[in-house]
């Protein structure tokens, strides 16, 4: 007979839990809001589970360390902004454990070379943020340490060595490995600039400079200095991405600026001419010669070269020097001597100024971002290798090339280079865990306290009600702040600290959110207690526990579920709010990400990708539970109204 068959645990479970749950879900699914809520909830849970399962070990503690994200650019927008017309420089990270060319060995010189090649393509005229090369696990061979040479072939055909360094390995033992990392600030600028000078035919125009060797040398070194300082803008590292433009306009001649100076000199010379009345030593021809030289310069100012100007003035200076010596030896009037001396020193000063600042020519180099494919080559050479190693590839474990572009990832990066998409992804399980633990625990406590308080009454009721009174009178946010601050200070630093602080928050949330539910449950219990079937159950000898679990609990449950659902977002939002308020626990919660943005000030606020997505996730998660709560509430309401 089927009726007498004992129900197994599984049957009971299906009957009492699975079937009602199915019913409720069906009912929720029947509502539009319920449908949306259930869909969102299932997405939330799926993402949380996958994030929790794939979270790399130690992520929670190391997400804030800069070395964890060293390959990422800092505070850059997501990659997809390029589809909205933004010009971007991509970020890449490439690692190679094998050389691209079979290791070369020249038996005559003994040079062993391992070559690795990388390519980076710049399609838009935008600078990447930075780049570097790293060579991991470098071993010495035969007590020979390698030389690392990194060179680039630019889209315009220029090939230049960027770095060359001899690696220092402490103990030249084959087992000891070393790591080499380039510093983009130490780029070999001279080589690059030389290549650019050759390729783009950048010279000081001979028709301006003339043939004076010294003037040529001064001018070209000046040109070089200006080019180096210009190409290093905005940084040395980015100099390789620049190409010169408008080369023909770089050098301008400042001829007209010379005229006032030359005329001043001419006047000084004419003064000398006028002051000589008696000329025993024949100084006048010298002066006249000087005047004619200067007049020639003034008249031909539009044509003369820099060298001509310089040499002619030098010549005038020599003439005046001779005149001065003669005037001194022949006891010319002091006014003549002084005038000659004045004119000479004026010319010498002018010569000096021409030599030092090159006031005859102005140089303003112009550069543009060079787009196209950049081919980098890393050569690791061991000089003087006597015997070819059996496995040359094992000398180097891997070579990495990382370009920090102007965009990165699905959601961009924040100020320590952390990939926002990754942070937010791993924030899912934390948020859900905080919300669910706090909410489930407080609901359980609230239901139990409410039932006990209502069912047993007497002094138990009194104690619970007074506790609720006190809890209701404490504003809990300030309390959380004070306890959180104390915890941050007192807890010893360590990997568990963040966990303890978060659990402390959850504990306070639990303590403060059961009271409201307990009051309602108590009043429900009071009215259920008076129902006749409870009397009947008591008369039949049912225990208190049985009555509570079989008769009261099921009726209170749906209301409790609604409260539970509503409490989830408030727990999540409270944690986030505390983070924004400056209480850092150290875990990458969505609130912590927003707190970082806020602490970064204008930089953080400027980065929309830093502020918008975490807040949206917080809002969406809350909305899921709010909508679910609304749906559950609709189911609960009829029963509430019977009270």
């Amino acid at each position, binding site marked *: 007979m089927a009726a007498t068959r004992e129900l197994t645990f599984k049957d009971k479970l299906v009957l009492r839990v699975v079937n009602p749950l199915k019913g409720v879900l069906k009912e929720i699914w029947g509502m539009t*809001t319920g449908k949306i809520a259930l869909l969102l909830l299932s997405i939330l849970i799926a993402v949380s589970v996958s994030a929790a399962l794939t979270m790399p070990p130690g992520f929670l503690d190391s997400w804030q360390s800069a070395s964890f994200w060293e390959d990422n650019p800092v505070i850059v927008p997501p990659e997809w902004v390029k589809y909205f017309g933004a010009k971007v420089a991509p970020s890449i990270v490439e690692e190679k454990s094998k050389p691209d060319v079979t290791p070369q060995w020249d038996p005559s010189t003994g040079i062993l070379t391992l070559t690795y090649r990388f390519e980076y393509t710049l399609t838009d005229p935008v600078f990447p943020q930075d780049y570097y090369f790293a060579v991991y696990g470098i071993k010495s061979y035969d007590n020979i340490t390698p030389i690392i040479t990194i060179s680039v072939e630019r889209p315009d055909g220029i090939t230049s060595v960027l770095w060359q360094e001899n690696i220092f390995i402490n103990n030249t033992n084959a087992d000891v490995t070393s790591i080499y990392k380039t510093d983009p600030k130490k780029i070999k600028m001279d080589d690059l600039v030389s290549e650019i000078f050759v390729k783009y035919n950048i010279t000081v125009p001979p028709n301006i400079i003339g043939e004076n060797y010294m003037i040529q040398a001064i001018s070209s070194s000046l040109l070089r200095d200006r080019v180096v300082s210009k190409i290093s803008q905005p940084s040395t590292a980015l100099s390789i991405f620049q190409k010169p433009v408008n080369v023909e306009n770089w050098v301008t001649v400042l001829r007209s600026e010379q005229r006032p100076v030359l005329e001043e000199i001419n006047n000084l010379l004419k003064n000398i001419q006028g002051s000589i009345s008696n000329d025993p030593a024949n100084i006048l021809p010298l002066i006249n010669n000087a005047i004619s030289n200067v007049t020639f310069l003034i008249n031909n100012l539009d044509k003369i070269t820099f060298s001509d100007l310089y040499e002619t003035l030098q010549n005038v200076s020599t003439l005046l020097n001779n005149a001065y010596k003669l005037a001194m030896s022949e006891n010319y009037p002091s006014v003549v001597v002084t005038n000659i001396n004045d004119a000479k020193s004026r010319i010498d000063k002018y010569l000096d100024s021409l030599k030092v600042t090159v006031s005859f020519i102005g140089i303003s180099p112009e550069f543009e971002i060079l787009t196209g494919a950049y081919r980098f080559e890393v050569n690791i050479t061991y000089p003087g290798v006597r015997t070819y190693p059996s496995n040359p590839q094992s000398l180097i474990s891997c070579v990495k090339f990382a370009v920090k572009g102007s965009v990165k990832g699905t959601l961009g990066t924040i100020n320590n280079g952390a990939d926002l998409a990754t942070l937010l992804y791993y924030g899912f399980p934390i948020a859900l865990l905080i919300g669910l633990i706090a909410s489930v625990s407080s609901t359980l406590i609230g239901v139990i306290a409410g039932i006990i308080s209502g069912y047993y009454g007497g002094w138990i009721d009194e104690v619970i009600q007074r506790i609720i*009174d*006190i809890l209701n*009178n*404490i*504003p*809990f*946010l*300030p*309390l959380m*702040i*004070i*306890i959180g*601050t*104390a*915890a941050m*200070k*007192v807890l010893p630093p360590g990997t568990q600290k963040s966990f303890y602080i978060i659990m402390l928050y959850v504990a306070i949330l639990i303590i403060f959110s059961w009271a409201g539910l307990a009051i309602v449950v108590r009043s429900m219990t009071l009215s259920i207690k008076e129902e006749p079937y409870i009397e009947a159950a008591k008369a039949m000898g049912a225990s208190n526990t049985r009555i509570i679990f079989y008769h009261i609990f099921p009726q209170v449950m749906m209301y409790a579920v609604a409260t539970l659902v509503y409490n989830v*977002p408030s727990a999540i*939002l409270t944690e*986030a*709010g*505390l983070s*924004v*308020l*400056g*209480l850092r626990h150290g875990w990458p919660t969505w609130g912590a990400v*927003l707190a970082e*943005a*806020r602490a970064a000030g*204008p930089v953080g*606020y*400027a980065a*929309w990708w830093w*502020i*918008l997505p975490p*807040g949206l996730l*917080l*809002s*969406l998660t*809350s*909305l899921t539970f*709010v*909508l679910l709560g*609304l749906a559950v509430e609709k189911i609960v309401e009829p029963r509430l109204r019977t009270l």
Partner: protein
Amino acid sequence: MPGAGYYIARRGVVLLVSYVAIIIIIAAILELSGYATQIYQAVINELVRADVDALVKARQGQVDPAYIQEYRQNRTIEYMKQYGLIDENGNPVPSYVRMWKLAFNALTFNFGKTKEDLVAMVVPTMPPASITYIISVVLPRTIIVVTVGELIVIAIALLVGPRIAYRHGTFLDRVVVAYAALTSAIPLWWLAMLFIRVFGYQLGWFPTSLRGVTTPLNNFWSNPAQNFVTILWYITPPLTVFTVISLGGWLYGIRAMVLRIVREDYVMVAKAKGLPERDITRKYVMRPSLAPILTNVILALAGTLGGMIITESVFDWPGMGTLYYAAITTGDAETIVALFVIYVGVYLIARFILEILYVLVDPRVRVR
């Protein structure tokens, strides 16, 4: 049957006891966890260092190192006595004894002085500054923005809420429910961050930090008209954000409250009798909903003091929230304790006012 006075007095005593209990619990937490000791130790180290520096300066560097050592030790012991870490005989005072002193100081508003620049800058004043003074300046600023905001929201909700309740099930009603659901999910302070980002940094319409409001507030009477406009300009961002977010919940709440009454039998009867809609609203609907609405208003006014801490600090409105932020980021424990004590006090006073109003509005409470 005891009267209303008895009831109010009883509630007053309960609230007072809660207040004292909360302060004692907090004192216990701070002392027993060792947090307070750490703070005192840091303060004492700082004071001793300052004293030694002063000594060296006064003697122009001509001091025997051994004497400095002795002097440092003496000063440390003296300050430790002063701060109650050791007693007169030099024996350490256990933390369960010290917590009573801390609680007593907190209950008598003897909060001490802050030494943090950031904290004092909220007023602004120079450290060391009396914490009681700082809070007395800062608390009204919080009340200005929070109370005004809450009153605006309540006024709008009371005007619109009942109308929506009558149009239960219409498109407008659904819009309001959706709006309420949405705003209950969006954190107030996040919207504040977005507001700062868009209207502050991007468009430049409003300041990105509201700290500047102190100037027109302090010199209000020098040019009331102009200062009023300036204050209005400063107050707009928090008020806008606050109104947008909390209006949803209020509309939903009042709608639900009125809806419950509209469905009551006596309203149905009134409708069936053919009474004009306006009379039904005034006599049958609004009157019974007055008590719960008033309760909610007062409770909200008390609650917002706690709820705006984060938003205020995000806007850098120089009120309690910003003071909290400054105290937390500089680790100024004394200010945090003081703020907590004041918050609990203000909250409990609000609760007490609520209890009184409760008794006045709803006679049933008296017989509870």
